């Protein structure tokens, strides 16, 4: 029972990441009708916002100690982080909380990147075929990841989480199961809550603002929105920026879980498309539900008990689900008629 609960929690934090990525992808697809293979790259860029932020605030001055020698006999280098020398204790706090703080950097950076992408490239592809959209965004994804590789190198760069969130929370205690029965890492719980908050925020934005009203209407019926005098194309840019921000924030908060490298986007790309398709192309609730569903399925498929019955299932569960859903329910779980069909 506890094992199942633990895997469920694990599925929720995995699912949170999947849902966030799929949410952005669906926003773009639903409003713009663009199949964006560069969306994974946006997630990766978000993660590297965290890396860049930390590198900025941990810039060091290096001085050579004239007397002491390093263990291999060279003069000893003394490194002082600039942030600490400038801001004192506050610099220390900055470094400690660099990951959550880099959200502040990621929001404008990702919005600019998203808007630039839409204005520069995507805009020209609204009327071209989905195949061409896939191709140009796939090319773009390669360019973005190679740029990151050129700047940050090929190796993953680990991002420490704030020390208060290290270690595990005693979830079992909260559920009245006694101490140390069910523990789960704080940061993973945080990620789940963060994902839920962002998802809630996006839904609230769409639900309670005029802009959101237009976007919801545009996702459902772009033609009619145009008939009511609304220039939906102008809002596409903003939507693309928003999707980029959502993907980027998902990336920022993911960095303490798995050190990001330039390839992170491609690793998530296939998965995020699978999530979107399972949820139903163009359905926001579908993307979120499918994200959590696949996260949980994947987590459960990794249990030894299940693997002993179905060897290898943990490796293919996501794709298998996609195939079954596509063959049995072509529109996905929440898909609407007429999306990507003609």
């Amino acid at each position, binding site marked *: 029972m506890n094992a199942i609960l633990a895997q469920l929690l694990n599925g929720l934090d995995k699912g949170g990441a999947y849902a966030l990525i799929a949410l952005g992808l669906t926003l773009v697809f639903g409003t713009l009708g663009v*199949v964006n293979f560069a969306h994974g790259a946006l997630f990766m860029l978000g993660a590297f916002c965290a890396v860049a932020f930390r590198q900025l605030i941990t810039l060091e001055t290096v001085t050579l100690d004239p007397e002491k020698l390093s263990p291999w006999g060279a003069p000893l280098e003394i490194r002082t982080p600039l942030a600490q020398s400038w801001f004192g204790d506050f610099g220390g706090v900055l470094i400690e909380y660099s990951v959550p703080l880099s959200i502040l950097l990621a929001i404008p950076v990702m919005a600019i990147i998203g808007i630039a992408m839409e204005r520069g*490239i995507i805009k*020209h592809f609204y009327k*071209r*075929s*989905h*195949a*061409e959209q*896939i*191709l*140009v965004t*796939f*090319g*773009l*994804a*390669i*360019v973005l990841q*190679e*740029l990151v*590789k*050129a700047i940050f190198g*090929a190796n993953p760069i680990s991002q420490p989480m704030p020390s208060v969130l290290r270690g595990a929370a005693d979830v079992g205690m909260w559920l009245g199961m006694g101490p140390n029965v069910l523990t789960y890492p704080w940061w993973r719980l945080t990620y789940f809550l963060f994902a839920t908050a962002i998802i809630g925020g996006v839904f609230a934005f769409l639900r309670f603002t005029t802009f959101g009203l237009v976007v919801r209407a545009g996702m459902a019926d772009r033609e009619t929105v145009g008939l009511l005098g609304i220039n939906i194309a102008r809002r596409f840019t903003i939507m693309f920026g928003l999707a980029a921000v959502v993907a980027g924030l998902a990336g920022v908060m993911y960095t303490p879980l798995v050190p990001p490298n330039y390839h992170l986007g*491609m690793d998530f790309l*296939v998965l995020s*498309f*699978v999530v979107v*398709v399972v949820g139903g*192309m163009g359905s926001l609730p579908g993307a979120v539900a499918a994200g959590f569903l696949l996260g949980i399925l994947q987590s459960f498929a990794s249990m030894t008990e299940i693997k002993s019955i179905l*060897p*290898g299932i943990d*490796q*293919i569960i996501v*794709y*298998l689900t*996609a*195939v079954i859903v*596509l*063959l049995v329910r*072509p529109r996905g779980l929440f898909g609407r008629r007429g999306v*990507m*069909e*003609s």
Partner: protein
Amino acid sequence: MNATAKTLFSMSRRDLITLVIFALVVLAMPIWLSPLGAAYPGLMQKFAIYAIFALGFNILFGLTGYLSFGHAAFLGVGSYTAVWSFKLLSMDVIPAIIFAVILSGIFAVAIGYLSLRRTGIYFSILTLAFAQMSYNLAYSVLTPITNGETSLQLSLRDPRVLDLAFGPREPGLPSASLFGHTFSGLEAFYFCAVVLLLAFFIAQKIFSSPFGMMLRAIKSNQTRMNYAGFNTRSYAMTAFVISGMYAGLAGALLAITDPLAGAERMQWTASGEVVLMTILGGVGTLIGPVIGAWLIKYFENIFSAFNDTALTHFFGFVPDGLREVVVAISSKFVGEGWQLTLGLLFVLVVMFLPGGIMEGVRRIRGLFGSGRTPQTGAVSRPQAAE
């Protein structure tokens, strides 16, 4: 465009000329690739093999518009089958090729049967999902068949029943052979080259046949074809299987030139690579995908090996202070950064030259006013079947 060809080997004059020129270019590779630093067997074999892969992929994508993102799975199946044929039966390449083509064909039937139930991006995702499943399984539970991460290789104790029925076990690992003649590196290239020419010839026949016409019709308007009473799915299915078999053939040749089969060959990025090749060269044209394949393989193998020293040498004419800057900037685009160049090139091609390099060639030709009609089967831009 000789749709009324009566016999298998009759072909239009134009196709014949193309074939002859193509044959000359391929067979003379060791000469013209030499100044480009690419005239070594390992790379030339790849040129021939990936050209076959791209040719086959183009029969599906170029003609029908179905964008498969999982074609590398068939390549992988072909490789594994060929290596198993070496291990169990014989080092002769003929059974290896036959088994590889048949088995990848069967795989294509199974995957195609399910995937072709959907069109457009759904088709792409289905093929992608199948290929990823194959890859992940090959990596994990299918290890007894695939040898997992280590890759399937020959071993000294392989049964090789046919070979050993005719002769004693030689010391050391055997190499692939054709009717008892063991291939050397360059011979293996010529073998691949001949297979490429054959594959090219078959592709030409398919392009100019009524079947090829029908496939193009599917691309331009599938719904109308369905209304007109054509069973478009069975045509698309045939194209899918043919292209799967081409991929299997390419996989077998990879195993012949280097008897090792690894799961990475099936990964989706490998499938993406053949898409890049086809688009870069020119989708729907005969030659385009081949050129795309050569370009990408050249980039991957030669361009990627450029380093700062080579660049400094290359920019020797630039004044000293400036040279470091030029080298520093250009070094981001070669060597380890070769994929950046590839990605940029690809984006530019899709944006401004949707017909790939072949369209560029046509435009340049048009500029000089030779006014020739576009090449056989030239289709200006990719269009998903939706």
